[in-house]
């Protein structure tokens, strides 16, 4: 039928070009017979290996976070290990939401649908509640490896107390400072133990010519146009601000109603006014921020994942071979206490649409595939690649091979789809060489000990789903304006008031009711 309607169209076109030969013709340049071979999706032609059980066919849709769709190298191994026939459909992360929405609305989602991030998951919740996806909670116990998944993180991904998804795990608190240790050493400063020292460090990096070129051309902190994943949220946690929501008089209240939030804004205002951070940070993209750091213009990169140190170091030493980086995250607040904000432990989830997964038996087969994915052998294959080709094992840890391009091309695309985390799926931890990175891994574990979770992660608010994003915009704008000195505390309070009256009050109510 697919073919038929198409050929009708084509015939119509052809008939048309025939009619053109009126008036002796010779002039018509219609070449549409030359069509670019309209191929219908024939699927792969991998030879079917004779095995007791026919391989399960699974179609998987996921966002593409690399430059290009990976070749089948990993997929072929994966199919062998899991007795499946897989079709991976990668779509550019940038327009993934459009693809997801269109496919969903037209009933064309494949059996396994990865979302893009937590935000898309929040968007999907309504449809999940409506029963468009399989509830997998009851089946989990049948799969030994899947039942290893961390209950507290599973809890964060539940909708109305039921589990519908498998999560892709991420360390809870990787954020901190990456800084120029060579500059600090030269100026005789040690890693900042508290916020005052952090401020002093930024000031010294700006004023005391840490790169020794005789010019005052460096700054302390480089930040970007992000309150959440930039420096702001991390520093606000150090000030003692709750993570997005906090308890106040026994009631949940948003972070920006806490005095510590205002202290954080004051801190940034002081940094920017003094010239100790990039003046245009509210308009600086991540790439531009990273560029300022790797081109030796800034000394402190705050708020990103400390594991980024490898990438930053790689680019920085191209420009300054003697540069040394280190990581740091234990910065005490004014009360001398440590605190780190934590993400809900996942960065994405996979769902199983009922429109594609027809029955329980099929669902179980698919879950079986994910169960196998959570064995060290398969998880390593997807995360690190093929041993000997893409990585080697040193001291029980994975050391990526020298051919970075090969890894980038063949493995990276699959990395973000591995269910669980190293603790649960048993894949290798990375073998690190850079001292700053080794330090970062220790700090990531330390961070969790003083971690602060978002108390609303597993709670529901209809109003938040409805207009949380645009309401948050009000606060984000007000925060920047305060830091840039365009509004004062009274002006900020007015914006918070506006947040309340436009739906924020309802969100507070709904979260407290759901608690």
């Amino acid at each position, binding site marked *: 039928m697919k073919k*038929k*309607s*198409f050929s009708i*169209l084509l015939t119509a*076109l052809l008939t*048309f*070009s025939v009619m*053109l030969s009126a*008036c002796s*013709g010779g*002039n018509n340049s*219609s070449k*549409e017979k030359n069509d*670019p071979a*309209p*191929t*219908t*999706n024939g699927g792969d032609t991998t030879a079917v290996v004779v095995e007791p059980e026919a391989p399960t066919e699974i179609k998987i849709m996921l966002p593409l*976070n*690399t*430059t*290009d*769709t990976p*070749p089948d190298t990993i997929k072929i191994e994966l199919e062998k290990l899991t007795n499946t026939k897989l079709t991976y*459909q*990668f*779509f*550019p*992360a940038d*327009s993934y939401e*459009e693809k997801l*929405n*269109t496919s969903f*609305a*037209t009933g*064309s989602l494949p059996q396994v649908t990865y979302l*893009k*991030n937590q935000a898309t998951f929040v968007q999907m919740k309504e449809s999940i509640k409506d029963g468009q996806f399989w509830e997998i909670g009851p089946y989990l116990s049948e799969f030994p490896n899947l039942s290893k998944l961390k209950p507290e993180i599973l809890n964060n991904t539940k909708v109305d107390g039921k589990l519908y998804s498998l999560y892709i795990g*991420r360390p809870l608190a990787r*954020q901190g400072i990456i800084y120029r240790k060579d500059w600090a050493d030269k100026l005789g400063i040690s890693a900042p133990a508290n916020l005052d020292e952090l401020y002093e460090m930024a000031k010294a990096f700006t004023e005391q010519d840490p790169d020794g070129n005789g010019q005052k051309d460096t700054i302390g902190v480089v930040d*970007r146009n*992000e309150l959440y994943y930039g420096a702001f949220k991390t520093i606000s946690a150090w000030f003692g601000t709750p993570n997005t929501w906090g308890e106040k008089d026994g009631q949940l209240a948003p972070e920006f109603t806490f005095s510590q939030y205002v202290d954080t804004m004051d801190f940034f205002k002081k940094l920017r006014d003094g010239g100790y951070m990039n003046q245009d940070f509210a308009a600086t993209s991540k*790439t531009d921020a*990273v*560029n300022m750091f*790797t*081109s*030796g213009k800034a000394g402190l990169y705050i*708020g*990103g*994942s400390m*594991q980024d140190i490898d*990438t930053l170091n790689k680019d920085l030493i*191209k*420009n300054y071979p003697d540069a040394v980086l280190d990581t740091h995250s234990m910065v005490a607040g004014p009360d001398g206490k440590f605190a780190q904000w934590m993400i809900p432990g996942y*960065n994405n989830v996979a769902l199983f649409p009922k429109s594609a997964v027809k029955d329980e038996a099929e669902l179980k087969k698919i879950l079986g595939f994910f169960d196998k994915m959570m064995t060290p052998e398969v998880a390593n294959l997807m995360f690190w690649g093929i041993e000997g080709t893409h990585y080697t094992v040193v001291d029980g840890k994975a050391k990526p091979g020298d051919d970075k*391009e090969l890894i980038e*091309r063949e493995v*990276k695309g699959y990395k*973000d789809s591995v269910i669980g985390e190293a603790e649960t799926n048993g894949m290798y931890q990375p073998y690190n060489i850079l001292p700053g990175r080794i330090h970062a891994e220790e700090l990531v574990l330390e961070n969790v000990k003083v971690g602060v979770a978002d108390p609303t992660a597993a709670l529901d608010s209809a109003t938040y789903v409805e207009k949380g994003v645009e309401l948050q915009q009000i606060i984000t704008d007000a925060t920047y304006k305060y830091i840039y000195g365009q509004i004062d505390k009274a002006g900020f309070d007015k914006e918070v008031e506006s947040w309340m009256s436009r739906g924020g009050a309802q969100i507070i109510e709904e979260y407290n009711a759901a608690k």
Partner: protein
Amino acid sequence: MVEDRSIGGRLFAAFNFTLLAIIALITVLPFIHVVAGSFTTSAELAANKFVLIPKVWSLDAYKFIFSTNTIFKAMGVSIGVTLIGTMVSMLLTALMAYGLARRDLDGRNVVNFLVVFTMLFHGGMIPTFLVVKELGLIDSYWALILPSAISAFNMIILKNFFQNIPEGLEESAKIDGCTDFGILFKIVLPLSMPAIATISLFYAVTYWNNYMNAILYLDDSAKWPIQVLLRQIVVLASGMDHSATLDATNPPPDQTIKMAVIVVATIPILSVYPFMQKHFAKGAMLGSMKG
């Protein structure tokens, strides 16, 4: 153009030339920066932000993007879709525009209005997707062509050009026994080469630059045109995705790779224009026939 050898004319020409040279320089500098950036190292690009002539030359970015055949394949798809798409579009557009250009056609105003209407009102992505799906075009290259086969804008412009052709020519052709098809192909089109060249260029560029159709309608990434790759790399490398997370597992591609892909994906379509330009001179024919 006719030469004017008076002093005023020369001054005018000199002034005009200088001004245009400045404008051309301003417009082309950032592109030179992109080309230069593709031939240098990421370190130099970070240190010296607005590189125009690289101090350190490097072909690494090109080695990287040409190390697999993906880009060649994508380029092939883009060229094929652009060529065939432009032909299909030109055929459909010219037929429609010619019909609507004839002032003696009853109902033309209604059709014209309905065409303009589609420029203002859109059904949206989902219903359009369903149409494409029902026609069985998912995963077919035709899905990159048919849904945008006629641009209302281009059709109206072409119609405008056709309307300027003196009707006397058509009358005399009719007397010679040509049908309307004959008139269009033997008389109107040859007389409208500047317009045909322009509109073909518009179509070619639209087909070349389109990536959304491919993402929506092609599930098989092996069929993607080059713009999808280009966009993917540019967005990743620019770090402008506002839904950014603090993910460390995916460091962005090098800036030099971004620049190299821009160069590779842009040069083919850029080089179309100079070939079109020679048709702009042929419009002269129209005048001579009129006289």
